[in-house]
């Protein structure tokens, strides 16, 4: 068997890294995401996994994959850039919030307190990465007709949409105008999964193992090794936002 096949899956290593990190006090962790653009094939599995994990409604997206065509024929290639929230260490989105609804938590992840957010959307305009979206209260089955006695309809089709989201370790049901409807929403590195020892959904579903995650304060972790490489870059570094998402080129 070739050496490549017996090599440990990076997911296993990241899982071990995560286990170690969770034993540390929260303030001593530094969650970092590293995305290897050479390995990303643009399958959008991470985007879909994120939508499914966080029960995102239409129009809300945490992790789109930007697709660009580079070069001219015959030297043409496509670049895929997944764009989660950058979890900036110097975030422009948090100081503008008029009610302290968005802030960096003890882990250094930029979070939104849904019950505090007034929905002014100032933070969205402040984010240079467009990493925040507003929940307009839409549902996928909005135009699905009601069922008949002999035919299944919206009441059955929207079962999935009634499943509460587990974000921030709580159950968020979509009903009426209640939060998270009318709130700004964003990627939070799947904090609710991390809390129970699971990697973010986008990491576990990445078919090319292009998305890596872990505690950069742990010198033995995979991400600590990756961010020290010379071929890393961060988006819009010139703005001084100090993103915690690194791209490997």
């Amino acid at each position: 068997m070739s050496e490549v096949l017996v090599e440990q899956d990076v997911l296993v290593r990241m899982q071990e890294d995560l286990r170690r990190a969770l034993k540390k006090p929260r303030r001593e962790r530094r969650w970092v995401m590293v995305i290897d653009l050479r390995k990303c094939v643009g399958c959008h599995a991470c985007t879909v996994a994120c939508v499914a994990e966080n029960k995102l409604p239409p129009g809300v997206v945490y992790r789109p994959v930007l697709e660009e065509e580079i070069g001219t024929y015959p030297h043409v290639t496509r670049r895929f850039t997944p764009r989660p929230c950058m979890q900036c260490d110097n975030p422009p989105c948090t100081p503008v919030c008029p009610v302290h609804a968005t802030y960096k938590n003890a882990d250094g992840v930029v979070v939104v307190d849904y019950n505090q957010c007034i929905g002014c959307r100032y933070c969205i305009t402040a984010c240079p990465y467009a990493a925040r979206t507003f929940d307009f209260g839409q549902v996928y089955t909005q135009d699905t007709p009601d069922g008949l006695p002999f035919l299944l309809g919206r009441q059955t089709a929207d079962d999935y949409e009634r499943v509460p989201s587990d974000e921030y370790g709580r159950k968020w049901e979509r009903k009426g105008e209640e939060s998270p409807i009318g709130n700004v929403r964003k990627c939070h590195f799947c904090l609710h999964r991390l809390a129970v020892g699971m990697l973010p959904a986008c990491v576990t579903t990445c078919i090319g193992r292009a998305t890596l995650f872990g505690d950069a304060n742990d010198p033995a972790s995979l991400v600590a090794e990756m961010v020290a490489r010379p071929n890393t870059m961060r988006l819009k570094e010139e703005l001084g936002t100090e993103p915690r998402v690194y791209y490997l080129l």
Partner: protein
Amino acid sequence: MFLKRIVYALCVVALLVGAWGVYDRLAYGHQNANYGSYVVWGLWVAMYLFFVGTAAGAFMIATLDLLFRVETFRGTGRVALWVALVSLGAGLLSIWLDLGHMDRIWKVYLQGNLSSVMAQIVWGYTLFGLLLLASLYLAIRQPRGVVLRVLMTVGLPLSLFLSGAVGALLGVQASRLFWHVGLFPVQFPVFSLASGAAAMLVALGLFGPRDDPRRGQQLWILSLSTVVLAVVKLYFLWADFSQSIYGNVPQNVQAVNAVLFGPYWWAFWILQLFLGTLVPVVVLAQPRLARHNGWAGVMGALVLFGFAVARANIVFPALTVPELEALTTAFTGPHLTFSYFPSLMEWAVTLGVSGLAVLAFLIGNDRLPLRGKEAA
């Protein structure tokens, strides 16, 4: 008066249309709005900037009578305060309807983040509203009292600060180069004063009593102020746009191009520049026309209209430029687009709010003692 009846009737129609819009907004939330997660602020935010700017400007005009006691403007202070009050109300109503959770507005007061410009503005405008109410009350009861002068003295810098703070609300955002202009907080008070002067042209020219011997002179001074401030506004525009284009930073140039040559070029060239600036400047620069109630009033209305469009041309273009180019096609869905034109519901709400403001002004103008003995 025939004109007044027509305006009353139009206000009622506007209110009916607005009632439908507000129903839609309350029943379906923001679902039927055309702003989204990329162009996050739409017509209501632009109208908020316009109305609160006009309120601050009208207050500045009120100080001519109630603080500085300029003889020519004697008796206009209460009207100006009333204009400021209804305009402020309309602005706050616009922005309140824009919130995702209207019921949580109290959090800005009790759990506010005072380092947020938005929180500062909410606090400031609340204070300004209370100050306006007290000033109007005193201007009616004790027009030459010391307390009123103190309030006007406090209110003048407050109105300047607040209109500047609205500029800062946008200006502090380094990620939007079109807004990130150091002089925004300086420009906005100028815009406010111009719209305040224009609002007073409408209030005095179209709806003021005909027997005031100082009216011609008042209109002439207000017209001259409007003309000068409109020219200053043009200079600011030129300075902003020419530097942006010369600097050639793509995101900034894209935003400027969206204003000048984008899908709504006509809003800038025809509505804002031609109808809202050029025509009024030419007409109001003529002393004979500027002293004429009808001409001055109509031109004041055009200037106001131009300023409303100008606010929209400040808010929208910066948001129509993608932060990351490939975002436009990265993920599709409702409210994920970089183009924007207000929806029917948004227009209806704005029409209703504007109708309510004009109606409130007319009722106050007719029923409140805004012109007592002091005014004669």
